[in-house]
């Protein structure tokens, strides 16, 4: 078990899964000869050849549309969308076909497509390189969505998504692609979709997060004079409802953190779950610390948009009284 950066763990997962299953192919813009703009697919073309690591035209709807056909022919495509906001042209394929084919064919046809993409802000990038589009994907029936926050989970969740019989979207927090470096199991490594990770145990307040907001919550917890529990959801669909409800039962105070805009963001779903199933466990309102309901701002001002440890800690203090 060696230490790897998060993006290196993604690369490792792709190597291992392509080695294991000859039906797995990787396709996307610049994934082959260039090895991906973040180097996530480096080495795959040399190892597996240009027929299994395919440089596509700059056309996201075409990438996913081709993957639909490849699935019908028995392949297991892993599509890279080069950036979060570049994925929007593929939403038509995703919503009208990918999420529906199993249902449309009465369960006769499987669509084991994986779509992976770097997502989120905080890297001083230009417009349309910073979005957190998880709600569009989670809101689409038939689609599973996973978001790692550690190198080991980046490998395990991607591998689980590739092997899953349902179409999966894996959103990789680009802000922490090359910040934290930690141990990643060698060889085959799976993290079951739908199992949250208890980052830190605590008794007074629960911070619920995923992706690059997990380290923000850890910084907030360090700044608080309280016993703070941090739950990393890891997978938004399926959602580990039991883990959320167990933590609420313990602390009775919840702050949900995501960098996507607030309205109909995933925090609303978690808050609704808690309201429906755990409202009598609560000692106060469920609070959200999120991005604002505006387009992701230009980088000179992005720090004001992005949930900060200060904002998370302020929300927690409001609950702790």
């Amino acid at each position: 078990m060696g230490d790897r950066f998060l993006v290196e763990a993604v690369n490792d997962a792709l190597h291992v899964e392509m080695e294991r299953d000859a039906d797995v192919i990787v396709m996307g813009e610049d994934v082959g000869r260039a090895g991906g703009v973040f180097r996530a697919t480096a080495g795959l073309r040399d190892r597996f050849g240009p027929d299994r690591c395919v440089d596509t035209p700059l056309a996201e709807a075409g990438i996913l549309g081709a993957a639909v056909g490849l699935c019908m022919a028995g392949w297991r495509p892993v599509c890279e969308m080069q950036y979060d906001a570049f994925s929007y042209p593929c939403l038509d394929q995703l919503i009208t076909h990918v999420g529906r084919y199993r249902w449309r064919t009465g369960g006769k046809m499987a669509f084991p497509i994986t779509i992976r993409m770097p997502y989120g802000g905080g890297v001083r990038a230009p417009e349309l390189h910073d979005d957190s589009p998880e709600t569009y994907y989670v809101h689409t029936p038939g689609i599973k969505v996973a978001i790692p926050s550690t190198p080991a989970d980046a490998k395990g969740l991607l591998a689980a998504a590739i092997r899953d019989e349902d179409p999966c979207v894996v959103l990789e927090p680009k802000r922490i692609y090359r910040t934290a470096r930690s141990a990643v199991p060698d060889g085959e490594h799976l993290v079951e979709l739908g199992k949250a990770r208890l980052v830190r145990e605590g008794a007074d307040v629960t911070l619920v997060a995923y992706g690059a907001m997990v380290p923000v919550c850890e910084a907030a917890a360090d700044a608080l004079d309280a016993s703070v529990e941090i739950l990393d959801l890891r997978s938004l669909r399926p959602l580990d409802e039991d883990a959320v409800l167990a933590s609420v039962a313990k602390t009775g105070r919840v702050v949900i953190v995501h960098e996507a805009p607030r309205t109909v963001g995933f925090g609303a779903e978690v808050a609704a779950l808690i309201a429906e199933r755990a409202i009598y466990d609560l000692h106060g309102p469920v609070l959200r610390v999120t991005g604002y309901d505006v387009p992701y701002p230009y980088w000179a001002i992005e720090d004001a948009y992005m949930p900060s440890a200060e904002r998370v800690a302020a929300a927690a203090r409001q609950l702790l009284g």
Partner: protein
Amino acid sequence: MHYRVAPHATADDPRAYIDLERVEEEKRRECLGRYEGFLKRAGVLTDEQAEEMKAGAAEVMRAGIAAAEAEPPPDPAVVFEHAYASPPGALARDLAELRRILGG
């Protein structure tokens, strides 16, 4: 087909995916340069005029960059501006809360 005259970004190494000899070939066929040559051959443009225009354009860019870099750090309110003609009330509450936290 078009070719970039420089890497896409500082982290980009185009040698991984492009034939550099082909890029040099395309630089010789690049349309602005060809048009400059055409105008000079037609006697419409002199070398001095061309240099003057290029120097003038570079100066406009230099001045623009200097002016942009001299701007003070933007106010957090900029985050909330121009998303709507008539902003939902939540945006004003968000800005007030953000100011409170940044101020404290």
